[in-house]
């Protein structure tokens, strides 16, 4: 493969990852607050369809994205209301909504299937896009991709560098402690479930108006991505940077399985197509390997300073979910 081709391929990886980035960032925020929104898969389909429908009808891409975010926020609000106010199981609600929103997307979307519609125009950034290698990789995309970069940074900074972000971490870890400190736990949960929903709602239009422009009904090829996004949220340890890395990694695996098809002729193409999924799980295992009893035992034999360093590394890699994830909070 030529070097240029490689760069173009990798730029494609970065672009195709951006909807997944939106979804994992949204889900990361929601789960950080202690709520699981399992309906991501259906939400992506529903917002892809409605984003496209609105954009095609009005001719405005911007309105398409606004519609996606609004619907995402609405689904988030339903999850929040049923799980926080009505105290129903978040898992059950999530599954039902995942199926409902998916079927709704296919049903309501049928008039728009295969239609032509507007798409987000490419917007190479002047000067920056001319830099060799870096330019085509990062600065020769459309606004959707740039937005994904910005949101990664904003979410990360919000979570780890601001006071409200610190409160968010606390709410997901130990709501009782947050409550004692005067935090309205349930209001926080509502807020981040709706905000997270709105971010997931960006993912759909990002597909239907940019990455895979158009709406093709059941053959849009979007079904399943939401489930991967949920896995990546976990793989990312509820950290926006790591979650984004996971999204890029997954897009990379998908691209590799495509470009390697002609090279690895011995392997059936179906195997290559599904390979990204088990590979993702394997990576997850490797990342969490450090916390196993076996490794800890071996470590205790190391001299003190080395052990410290290794322990610090493991601590960084090791992920543990927000302790209050999926639970209800009652005062007292």
């Amino acid at each position, binding site marked *: 493969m030529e070097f240029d081709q490689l760069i173009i391929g990798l730029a494609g990886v970065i672009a195709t990852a951006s909807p997944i980035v939106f979804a994992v960032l949204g889900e990361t925020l929601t789960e950080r607050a202690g709520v699981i929104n399992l309906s991501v898969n259906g939400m992506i389909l529903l917002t892809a369809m409605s984003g496209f429908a609105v954009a095609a009808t009005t001719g405005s891409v911007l309105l398409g994205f606004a519609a996606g975010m609004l619907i995402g926020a609405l689904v988030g609000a339903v999850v929040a209301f049923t799980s926080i106010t009505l105290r129903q199981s978040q898992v059950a609600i999530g599954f039902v909504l995942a199926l409902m929103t998916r079927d709704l997307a296919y049903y309501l979307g049928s008039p728009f299937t295969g239609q032509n519609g507007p798409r987000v125009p490419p917007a190479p950034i002047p000067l920056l896009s001319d830099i060799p290698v870096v330019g085509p990789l990062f600065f020769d995309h459309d606004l959707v991709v740039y937005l994904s970069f910005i949101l990664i940074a904003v979410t990360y900074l919000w979570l780890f560098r601001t*006071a409200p972000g610190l409160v968010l*971490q606390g709410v997901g870890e130990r709501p009782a*402690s947050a409550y004692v400190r005067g*935090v309205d736990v349930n209001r926080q949960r509502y807020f981040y479930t709706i905000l997270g929903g709105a971010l997931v709602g960006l993912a759909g239009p990002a597909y239907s108006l940019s990455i895979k422009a158009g709406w093709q009904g059941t053959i849009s090829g979007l079904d399943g991505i939401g489930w991967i996004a949920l896995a990546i949220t976990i793989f990312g340890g509820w950290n926006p940077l790591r979650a984004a890395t996971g999204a890029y990694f997954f897009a990379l695996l998908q691209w590799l399985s495509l470009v390697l098809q002609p090279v690895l002729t011995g392997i059936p193409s179906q195997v290559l197509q599904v390979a990204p999924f088990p590979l993702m799980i394997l990576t997850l295992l490797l990342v969490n390997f450090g916390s196993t009893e076996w490794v800890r035992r071996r470590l205790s034999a190391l001299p003190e300073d080395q052990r410290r360093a290794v322990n610090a590394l493991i601590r960084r890699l090791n992920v543990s979910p927000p302790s209050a994830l999926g639970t209800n909070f009652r005062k007292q």
Partner: protein
Amino acid sequence: MQVEFRNIHKRFGSVHANKGITLNIPGGCIQGLLGENGAGKSTLMKVLSGFITSDEGEILLDGRAVTIPSPAGAIEQGIGMLHQDPLDFPPLRVLDNLLIGGRRGLIPDRRAALKALKEIEAQFGFSLDPDAYVDTLTVGERQQLELIRLLWLGARVLILDEPTTGISAPQKVKLFAALRKLSAEGRTIIFVTHKLEEVYQLCHRAAVLRAGALVAEIEPPYHTENFINAMFGGEIPTPPRQPPPTTAPLLALKGVTVEDARLQVGPIDLTVKAGEVIGLAGMEGSGQDLLLRLCAGLLRPTGGEIALGGRALQNATYHQFLRNRVKFMPADRMTEGLVAGLSLTEHFALNAEVHGFFINYKQAEQTAVERIAEYSIRGFPESPVESLSGGNQQRTLLALLSAPLHLLLLEHPTRGLDLESAVYIWKRLKERARSDGTAILFISSDLDEVLQYSDRVLVFFAGRASVPLSAMQTSVEELGLLIGGVPLETARSTAGMHQPEALSR
């Protein structure tokens, strides 16, 4: 700040937890609050700290009636509560813990928090690493962190609910020094405890609750019988010591070593007779907890042999240990021992010897009624376990240990229990040991308890165990020295003991 309770009533369903409590606490005073398990101490403190609202009555601060709608509202009024299980954020760093819910604003002011941390630490001789993760701290250090946070937020009344149960002796000394200093500055401190000697050491005055009512206010000079009479309505005879059993050996450890990420323990040689009670003393995390988990089958030894009744168990699974009638009772009763959300009846149903496919609720309820009476648990068969007071949860755990056992392993069996309950529970345990031949190994940080109820004592220091000491021939002073790492010979001469007689191994 002066705190006054006027006629506080609180009912939980049919339980009348506070029955018209009227108590006036002058500013700058360290007020002790005592009472048997379930007397209503925590309830009263939760009313003051805004966790629950009283059904009747009012609270006055410096003579001004106030309403305290929430814990955050309490801290605004200057009332801060230190919970027994510190309400902090274990996976976050020390500094972040201070910052959450602190001053508002978008960017947290780390520098100000760090400065406050250092200042308050300097006052009390605490030293916490601001970048350390809270889950790497000891309970005592987490308590210090909470104290710092409350002071930073301007608390002028501090409530401490059984603060000394999980902390080491040096940490307790530090805590007491800090509390004295705070009271000298004019802050009011309410100190809930079961330990009379802590009241004697620390408190300017004490109040006793019983069955929800205030029954006595006691001022120095303190007399133990006044407290005991007020709390329990009479004396509590401590059972007389019995000579150690002379039965056949039951549990044999030969050169056993065990380790976790932090500590290597052993080699330990120990033979325990049937019906013998062995106390394990030592600073928290010196290896005694690993030995207990090893004997429970929760940890595999890295070397050596374990035999129970002649059967080798060093490679056995936890399940095989259970089948050999070994039972472990961990210290953390709510997370490891009891299931939150299940009622007493359901616990007895889970615990039933014969498991059918369907639950025999009628029988389970009957068992529950019997055991509630037998162990005088303050609760009903349908009460969810988390609504029980701490002491009653402990009684429940013991009541669940019905089947005959060979080996019983206990971690802090009387932590959080009032004196009467502790004596009662040990009476039951001793009966078990003597009549069924159950060998008991237990950890306790209360050296008086270790001496009073063990036949022999093992002292742990940094993963090494002392030779088993006969409880008759050692003393609290000697144990204290051994816990601090002083070698046995030195400890013996320092503690002024006679030459040890031949120690049985």
